[in-house]
């Protein structure tokens, strides 16, 4: 098996209009920025984007919004914390204008829905969100006296992930807090595209240091990571 693609443009070329795409990254950490840029260039429309935030730390998503590529966003912390900075951000403006439909989940529920999809679990009960707007329209049920909400698996057509190291058969090793959403999104995506900073040969990553087994990854592409100083408001 050789899952290596020659570049990000080839790796995202087949994404059709209407696709759902999970994009990893917690603010600036572990965000596959070169894939987001390639998607903006590729131009697929009516996309459903599943990612923690629409802008903060992954400002390249703004280009997708400006291009009107996004129909719907599923997030857990979509906007800038500062109301004033948010008001001038493309995502918040698009949501306020009704140009992008948005669903927001608690952070743990968000990734658990992706984890369930990758793990063949159809749905699960979590106590998070009971008694809040999150419970609207959801089944509520008591387990051992504890109210829980039924949440369903969320399976994206594509997943964009990022890894410090990846080999040709898709085994990925993550680095420190850049791991975050990458393992569960990689498992959830029907087609998972991994942007890797270091492309290595099978065997170069110790088996116990593989954080994302290659079976979850369909495409591997070497990228130069944009350097940045992490910072966010």
């Amino acid at each position, binding site marked *: 098996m050789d899952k290596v693609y020659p570049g990000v443009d080839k790796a995202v070329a087949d994404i059709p209009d209407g696709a759902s795409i999970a994009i990893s990254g917690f603010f*600036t950490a572990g965000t596959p920025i070169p894939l987001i840029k390639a998607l903006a260039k590729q131009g697929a429309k009516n996309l459903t984007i599943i990612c923690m935030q629409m802008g903060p730390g992954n400002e390249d998503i703004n280009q997708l919004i400006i291009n009107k590529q996004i129909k719907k966003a599923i997030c857990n912390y979509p*906007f800038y914390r500062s109301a004033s900075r948010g008001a001038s951000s493309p995502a918040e403006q698009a949501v306020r204008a009704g140009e992008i439909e948005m669903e*927001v989940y608690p952070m743990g529920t968000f990734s658990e829905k992706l984890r369930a999809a990758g793990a063949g679990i159809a749905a699960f009960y979590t106590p998070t969100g*009971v008694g809040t707007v*999150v419970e609207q329209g959801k089944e509520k049920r008591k387990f051992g006296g504890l109210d829980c909400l039924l949440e369903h698996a969320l399976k994206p057509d594509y997943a964009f992930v990022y890894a410090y190291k990846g080999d040709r058969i898709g085994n990925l090793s993550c680095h*420190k807090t850049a791991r*975050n959403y990458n393992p569960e999104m990689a498992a959830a995506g029907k087609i998972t595209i991994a942007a890797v900073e270091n492309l290595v040969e099978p065997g170069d990553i110790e088996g116990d240091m593989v*954080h994302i087994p290659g079976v979850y990854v369909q495409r591997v592409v070497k990228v130069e990571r944009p350097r940045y*100083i992490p910072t966010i408001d």
Partner: protein
Amino acid sequence: MNVTRKLRGLSRELIALRIANELEDGTYVNLGIGIPTLVSDWIEGRDIILQAELGMLNTGPLASRDEVEQDLINASCQPVTELAGSCFFSENESFAMIRGGYMDTAVLGALQVSEKGDLAGWQNPERGLPEDIGNIGGSMDLAVGARKVIIAMMHVTNDGQYKIVKNCSYPLTARGVVDLIVTDLAFIEVTPKGLLLREVAPGLTAEDVQSVTEPRLIISPDLKEMQL
């Protein structure tokens, strides 16, 4: 409408200190964004392990400029450092830990806290977003999952409105989860009988605190000055 009068209380840093004093050694703690983050300045050297919810345990102090690593940040996107015994895991594992009851304490900010311990903190309706849209982030999971929830906040809003209320009017983060409320003015415990005022900021009286608190406070027979 300014419903409360202006009282001089503790700085944000001293609110954080009061909370740090309340944390027990040998425990795991998650600190939210805002005043809670400042608690970390007061626990260096303490036997307390901090979780960063993006996937790290034993989070170290903020990184100095030459220590900055782009793959090593906390949940507020600040560059941090490692300690001996730091470890990393996925965000999903992090919230498994949180929901699973492994955080002894979560210190969170709040917009409103009710006398029943309801917490409203994830969305300020004044921002004008749809009612189900906003930055929920990890707040709901932490509020439900942590064994003890301590709220760190200013006692009233910038324009003098109550934040400790009979019933939250803002969107809830979770119901009946708050254990302690630590503000610039007071240290209050949420009890089944109501809010127990245990400490007041230096120079203040119980009546002062009551005047800026909507629900009726139970005054502790042991009422003290805040333990700094």
